[in-house]
C-alpha cells in the first residue's frame, strides 16, 4: 500500500511555483529521501504532507485517504523539524510526552512512554533537563523521540542533520537507518546533501525548480542520471554536451561520466588542457578544459600527474559514458 501519494500537486505562492505538478508515490515502510538544492520545493512537499501548507492544485493522499481538508493535528504523521522546535518552557520528558498529553493520556503512562522513547534514542535519564541544557545532537534525538512516541505511520524529517557536525552526522545517519528498519515506519527525509540521501534512503527523489526530476534507488540516481542536472547535482559527474557526444558516439544527446572513471592516456578521443590541480589525500582532483567544456578527473595517488597547462588526452572504459535525456 502507498503511504503517501501526490497527484499533480502544485503549491504556488503568488507568482512563485514552489511545487509545480508533482506526482509522487511513497510506499509503506520505505525510507524515502527528497533531495534538491534550496528552493527546489522539497521542503514545501514535506510541509504539504504534514499539513502546514495546502496544495493550490492536485490531490494528496495518506494511506489512501484524501487529506486536502485535514488540518495537521488530524494527520497520522509527525515531523522532526530542522530547528527541532523543542518547547523551551518544558523539560525534556514533557517535550517528548507532549503529543500524548494532548491525546489525553494521564501523567504516569505518558511519562512512561516518553521514558521508553528517550531510551530508544539513547537519552535515558535526560528527562528532567531543559532543552537549552542539551547539545545539538541531543536535541535532535529529543525531537526524534517526541515525534516517534506518537507512533506515527509516516515520520517526516526536515533536514534533521543539517545543524550537526560531520562526525555526529555520520553517526546519526546510521542510527536513523537502524531505527527505521526496527520500527518499520515510513520515513520521508528532506535533505540537500546528496551523500546523506544516497547513503540512507531506499529511494531518492531529486527536486529542481518545484518539480521532481528523477526518482529511483540511490545507485540509479548516482550511476544512471537521466538528465544533466541529476548528474551534476547528485554525482558531481562530468556532463558532456550533446555536440561532443554526437562526435564521439553518433548519439545526439548529453552524456555523463564520473570523474573517477576519466583516465589520462597517450592518445584518446578527447584532448584537454589542465587548468587546475588539487590534492585530496587518496586522490588528486584535476580540472580540464576540453572543447569549451569543463571536466574533472579524480586520479589515484600513484597515477602520473600532469602539470598545469599540459595538453593531455582523456579516455575511459566503454560503458562508463552514460547517455542521458536532453533537458534539465
Amino acid at each position, binding site marked *: 500500500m502507498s503511504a503517501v501519494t501526490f497527484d499533480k500537486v502544485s503549491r504556488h505562492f503568488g507568482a512563485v511555483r514552489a511545487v509545480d505538478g508533482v506526482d509522487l508515490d511513497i510506499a509503506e515502510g520505505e525510507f524515502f529521501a527528497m533531495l534538491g538544492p534550496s528552493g527546489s520545493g522539497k521542503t514545501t512537499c514535506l510541509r504539504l504532507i*504534514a*499539513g*502546514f501548507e495546502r496544495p493550490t492544485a492536485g490531490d494528496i493522499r495518506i494511506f489512501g485517504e484524501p487529506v486536502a481538508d485535514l*488540518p*495537521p*493535528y488530524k494527520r497520522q*504523521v*509527525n*515531523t522532526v*523539524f*530542522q*530547528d527541532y*522546535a523543542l*518547547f*523551551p*518552557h518544558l523539560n525534556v520528558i514533557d517535550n517528548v510526552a*507532549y*503529543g500524548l*498529553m*494532548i*491525546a489525553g493520556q494521564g501523567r504516569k503512562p505518558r511519562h512512561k512512554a516518553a521514558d521508553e522513547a528517550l531510551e530508544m534514542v539513547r537519552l535515558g535519564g535526560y528527562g528532567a533537563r531543559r532543552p537549552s541544557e542539551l547539545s545539538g545532537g541531543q536535541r535532535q534525538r529529543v525531537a526524534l523521540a*517526541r*515525534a516517534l512516541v*506518537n507512533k506515527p505511520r509516516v515520520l517526516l524529517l526536515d533536514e534533521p542533520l543539517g545543524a550537526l557536525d560531520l562526525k555526529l552526522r555520520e553517526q546519526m545517519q546510521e542510527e536513523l537507518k537502524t531505527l527505521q528498519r526496527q520500527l518499520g515506519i515510513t520515513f520521508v527525509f528532506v535533505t540537500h546533501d546528496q551523500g546523506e540521501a544516497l547513503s540512507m534512503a531506499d529511494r531518492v527523489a531529486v527536486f529542481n525548480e518545484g518539480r521532481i526530476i528523477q526518482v529511483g534507488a540511490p545507485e540509479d540516481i548516482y550511476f544512471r542520471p537521466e538528465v544533466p542536472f541529476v548528474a551534476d547535482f547528485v554525482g558531481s559527474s562530468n556532463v558532456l554536451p550533446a555536440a561532443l557526444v554526437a562526435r564521439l558516439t553518433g548519439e545526439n544527446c548529453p552524456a555523463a561520466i564520473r570523474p573517477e572513471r576519466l583516465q589520462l592516456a597517450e592518445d584518446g578521443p578527447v584532448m584537454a588542457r589542465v587548468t587546475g590541480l588539487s590534492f585530496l589525500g587518496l586522490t588528486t582532483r584535476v580540472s580540464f578544459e576540453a572543447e569549451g567544456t569543463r571536466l574533472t578527473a579524480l586520479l589515484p595517488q600513484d597515477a602520473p600527474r600532469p602539470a598545469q597547462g599540459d595538453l593531455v588526452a582523456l579516455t575511459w572504459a566503454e560503458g562508463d559514458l552514460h547517455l542521458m535525456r536532453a533537458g534539465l
Partner: protein
Amino acid sequence: MIAARSESIGTRLSDMLWRRPAVLLVLLLLPPVLWLGIIYLGSLFALLLQSFFSIDHFTGLINYRFTLSTYAELFTPANFDIILRTVTMAACCTLASAVIAFPIAYYAARYARGKWRAVFYLGIMMPLWSSYLVKIYAWKLILAKEGILTWALEGLRLNWLLEAYLSLPVVGGNSLSVSTTGTFIVFVYVWMPFMILPIQAALERVPGSMLEASGDLGARPAQTFRHVLFPLALPGIVAGSIFTFSLTLGDYIIPQIIGTSRLFIGQAVYQHQGIAGNIPLAAAFAVVPIVIMGLYLWGAKRMGAFDAL
C-alpha cells in the same frame, strides 16, 4: 626607533585605555551608577524614611520621630478603600489590556510585513506622541453625557443599551465620564501600547515551527495557545502587566478628570504631599505600590512567568 614620545596625549590616552579596559568601563559606568545610586535610590530611601514620621495635624509641620502610626493610618476604612479600589482597578485594567493587546500583538508579530508593519508601529506609538492630558480631555469629551459616544449611540438608536449599563451599581453612573467604567476605559486606552509592545516582542521570539510542532503533535489551535503560545508569551505579558499595573497604581491624573471623584493611591499621594503637606502619609501611600509590585513580581516568578526567558 619607536616614535612614542612624539605621540599626542589623545593617542597615548587611547593606548592606555586599550591596555586597561577596566578603567574605560569604570569611566563609562560611573556617571549612570552615581545617578542611579544617589539620585534615584537615594530619593527612594528618603521617601521610605519619611513614611516613619508623622504630621502635626493642625500646623501641618512634620514631627521627626520614628513612629508606625502613619502606616496604621493606611488601614483606616477610608484609606484602605483607596488602596483596595486602586488595586482592583489596576488588576482589571491589566487583565483587559492583556486580552485586547494579545491579538493585536499576535497579528503584528506573525502576519504584519513591510508597509503594514510600519502602519502597526505608527498606530501603536502615535497615541504616545500626543500629550497625555490632551488624550484624557479628549476622552472626557467622548464619554461625557452630551458627548460623542452618546450622540453616536443615539444615532444608532442604541442609547437604551448605554442607559441600561449605566444603571448598574458600581460600574455605572450618571454618564460614562463620571463612572468607574470611564476611568477603566481611559486607563486601558492610555496604557495599551505598554502592553502590546512587550507581548509583540515575546511573540516575535517564538519561531513559527514551535506552533507547527504543536499542531503536528495533535494539538488543536486552542490547545497550542494554552500549552505553547501562552507560556512562551507569558514573560511579555508579565512585562506588559508590570507597566499597566504599576502605572495604574501610580496615576493621579486620570481618576481626577474621569470618574467618580473617589480617590486612587496616586491622588492620595498627590493630595497628601502636594496639597495637605502630609508628607509622611503620602510616603506611606507611595510605599504601597512598591510593596504590591514586589509581591506581584514574586508571585509571577513563583508561577514560572520567567521560565521561558
